[in-house]
């Protein structure tokens, strides 16, 4: 007897129907994510076995409808129809239906049953339905739908084995016929389009293209079959309109009518709807005063947790890296290899790993907020303010998180379904002042604005405010130009409050951490090694003598001068000198310019780089004594003609440059990753650098006018 062949099961359902919980119950926690070109959502896949049959589980993104308006939404349709290269067509479709909200959940199933796969329906949220005194007559539901239905309670593993039995049965059974509950003219049009274009084309795809004018299915058909497809769709739509059908809106009306017929007598609910726990909680949590107060409290807690709770762990990582660097420095022969290991590789790895605590904490926190249903309430409360700058309430939390670090902030934009909204949020998130800007802010505001006592604090406040003002403005401009589109719909479901599950939250934290380390790690490491090389080579002076050797043999008091001489003739130093004309309008000389250039991969590097450039040696960002010495050096520094180098105007221009510039390879790597395009990372880098340069220029030149 041959071993049974594996079957592929795709999970499809509305958001908030317990799909993640069911997927975890079916596939265990050991799954991997699949990525597809042009698509920003991830598809989780897991393997399991039932009896002797291996099963591959595919978790499709949650959706309310198959009428796709973006590549992200189209993924489910393409995957089910087997139209994705390297991704065989699934054998069975497992559709989820929330027992407390059957009608709307079955709308998706009504669309899905035309895609030519056997379907098994899993009825979820049965405990919640029970608590609301809602009963669902399973036998009648199966009869009405003509599909197998299994009631499950995934969190307690109830019904799971029976569900797998039914899936195996269904995989050998027949597929439902193409029989949409729509007017006969519409069905005939879809069939005709499919036949005329290509006998292989599923009529369901032709139907989607016909009904969703300007949607992804139409785009796909036009790409595949050219103008012929576009003409055909247009002429069929015109015919249907002539026959009195409103093509854009007929589908939901007909499907819901059909569902009401099928659902007759299936659901019994109390005459007067009970006030649920969720209702009572919402009375407080979306209240104009108490709701806002609670929201501010949650945001404060979130901010504190990423800003301060992460810092002990970050200090440990920082300290660990420094001891590793010392260990390497003390035990290896000095030379290019040791320098590469210490200042390139170890510093680079440290620069990535340092963000890990923040990312893990933020993702744990956001995961809990999302799971318990509060995220939708937060978006609800903030929507009015955010809509003023062309975004929606969902952009608020990512932007706030970016105050700690843009990397987790950008990762958390995954909750925003609207692609343009999500892009706009990603592109402006790095404008929010992150914690890595703090060392520069502190250094310069303390050094150059010490009196009166309130000035340094006010400068700091102004720098943070710059981000708060510029980010929404840029978002507004983007939404009106590059990311122009319909005003995003804010029809948002407010899910029932639930207790968050622990294991999936931990899993999510782990996934966020590892994927960040892997993807951003490779790029930032490469950049750090590059900057190291640019600062190290050429390492011989004009007499052919090796700088590191000269420094090692020199008197301690001469060492700093030699380091400066070495860096000055390094590739980066030469670039800094060559680019001095670019820096002078900002009030910077080549030494400041070189430090700024060196800090492009990671902005906090600037303190150390200034230390090197101004002959104070390496200054660690958190080394207060070193910073004080550096402050003295900066104050004493002059232009060749003896004018003081750093004035109020040039200090402010440097600060504003740092507030607006995207000097962070990790952020750019994450933007490239999340948008699946290098282009957006290049765009962010270019617009922010331009903006930063223009602002620094304006400030220095204005400052000079007023002396």
């Amino acid at each position, binding site marked *: 007897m041959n071993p049974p062949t594996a079957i592929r099961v795709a999970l499809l359902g509305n958001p908030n129907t317990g799909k993640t919980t069911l997927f975890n119950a079916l596939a265990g926690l050991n799954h991997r994510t699949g990525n597809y070109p042009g698509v920003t959502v991830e598809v989780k896949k897991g393997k399991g076995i039932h009896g002797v049959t291996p099963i591959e589980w595919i978790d499709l993104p949650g959706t309310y409808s198959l009428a796709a308006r973006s590549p992200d939404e189209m993924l489910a349709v393409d995957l089910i129809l087997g139209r994705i290269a390297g991704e065989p067509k699934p054998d069975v479709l497992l559709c989820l239906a929330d027992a407390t909200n059957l009608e709307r959940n079955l709308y998706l199933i009504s669309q899905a049953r035309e895609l030519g796969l056997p379907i098994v329906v899993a009825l979820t949220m049965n405990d919640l339905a029970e608590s609301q005194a809602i009963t669902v007559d399973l036998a009648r539901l199966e009869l009405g739908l003509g599909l197998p239905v299994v009631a499950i309670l995934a969190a307690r593993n109830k019904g799971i084995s029976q569900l797998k039995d039914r899936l195996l049965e269904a995989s050998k059974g027949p597929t439902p016929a193409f029989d949409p509950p729509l007017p006969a003219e519409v069905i005939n049009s879809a069939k005709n389009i499919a036949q005329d274009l290509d006998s292989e084309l599923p009529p369901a795809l032709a139907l989607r293209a016909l009904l969703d004018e300007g949607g992804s299915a139409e785009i796909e058909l036009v790409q595949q079959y050219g103008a012929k497809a576009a003409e055909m769709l247009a002429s069929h739509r015109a015919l249907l309109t002539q026959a009195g059908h409103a093509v854009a809106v007929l589908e939901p009306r007909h499907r819901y009518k059909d569902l009401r017929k099928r659902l007759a007598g299936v659901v019994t609910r109390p005459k007067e709807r009970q006030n649920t726990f969720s209702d009572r909680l919402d009375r407080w949590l979306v209240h104009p005063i108490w709701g806002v107060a609670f929201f501010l409290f949650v945001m404060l807690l979130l901010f504190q947790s990423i800003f301060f709770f992460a810092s002990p762990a970050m200090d440990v990582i920082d300290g660990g890296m420094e001891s590793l660097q010392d260990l390497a420095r003390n035990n290896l022969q000095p030379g290019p290899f040791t320098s590469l290991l210490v200042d390139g590789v170890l510093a680079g790895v440290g620069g990535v790993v340092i963000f890990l605590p923040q990312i893990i904490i933020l993702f744990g926190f956001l995961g809990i907020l999302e799971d318990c249903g509060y995220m939708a309430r937060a978006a609800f409360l903030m929507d009015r303010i955010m809509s003023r700058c062309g975004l929606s309430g969902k952009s608020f939390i990512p932007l706030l998180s970016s105050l700690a670090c843009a990397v987790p902030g950008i990762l958390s934009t995954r909750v925003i379904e609207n692609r343009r909204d999500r892009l706009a949020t990603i592109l402006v998130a790095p404008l929010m002042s992150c914690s890595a800007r703090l060392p520069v802010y502190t250094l310069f505001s303390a050094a150059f604005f010490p009196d009166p006592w309130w000035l340094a604090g006010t400068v700091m406040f102004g720098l943070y405010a710059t981000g708060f003002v510029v980010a929404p403005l840029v978002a507004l401009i983007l939404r009106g130009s590059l990311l122009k589109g319909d005003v995003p719909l804010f*029809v948002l479901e407010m899910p029932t409050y639930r207790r968050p599950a622990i294991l999936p939250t931990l899993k999510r934290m782990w996934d966020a951490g590892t994927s960040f380390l892997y993807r951003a790690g490779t790029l930032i490491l490469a950049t750090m090694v590059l900057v190291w090389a640019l600062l190290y080579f050429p390492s011989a002076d004009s007499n052919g003598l090796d700088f590191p050797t000269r420094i090692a043999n020199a008197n301690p008091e001469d060492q700093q001068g030699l380091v400066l001489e070495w860096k000055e003739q390094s590739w980066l130093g030469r670039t800094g000198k060559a680019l001095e004309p670019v820096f002078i309008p900002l009030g910077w000389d080549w030494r400041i310019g070189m430090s700024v250039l060196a800090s492009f991969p990671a902005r906090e590097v600037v303190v150390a780089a200034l230390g090197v450039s101004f002959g104070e040696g390496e200054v660690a960002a958190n080394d207060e004594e070193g910073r004080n010495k550096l402050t003295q050096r900066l104050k004493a520094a002059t232009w060749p003609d003896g004018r003081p180098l750093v004035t109020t105007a040039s200090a402010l221009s440097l600060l504003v440059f740092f507030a607006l510039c995207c000097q962070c390879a990790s952020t750019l790597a994450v933007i490239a990753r999340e948008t699946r395009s290098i282009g957006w990372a290049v765009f962010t880098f270019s617009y922010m650098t331009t903006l930063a340069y223009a602002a620094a220029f304006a400030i220095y030149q204005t400052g000079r006018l007023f002396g």
Partner: protein
Amino acid sequence: MVPEIPTTLDSVPLGARCLVTAIDGIDQLARKLLEMGIIEGEEIEVIARAPLGDPMEIRLLDSSLSLRNVEARRIHVTLIGTHP
């Protein structure tokens, strides 16, 4: 019995219940509203409003939805009473 007053959903007061009589338009927004189950004949209750009066939270069947006022303006309703 409260008289059946025709209006649009954005001007329905907090706590009031109404029946959907029509959805305006044949565009994406109309379609999205219909897909979410806001169909002629369904009952809607207004349960909350965000600060500054926009968006609003409604209960429809057994789910809660949030809608902006511009979206709610497309939904024609008749008032049928308040929640007891």
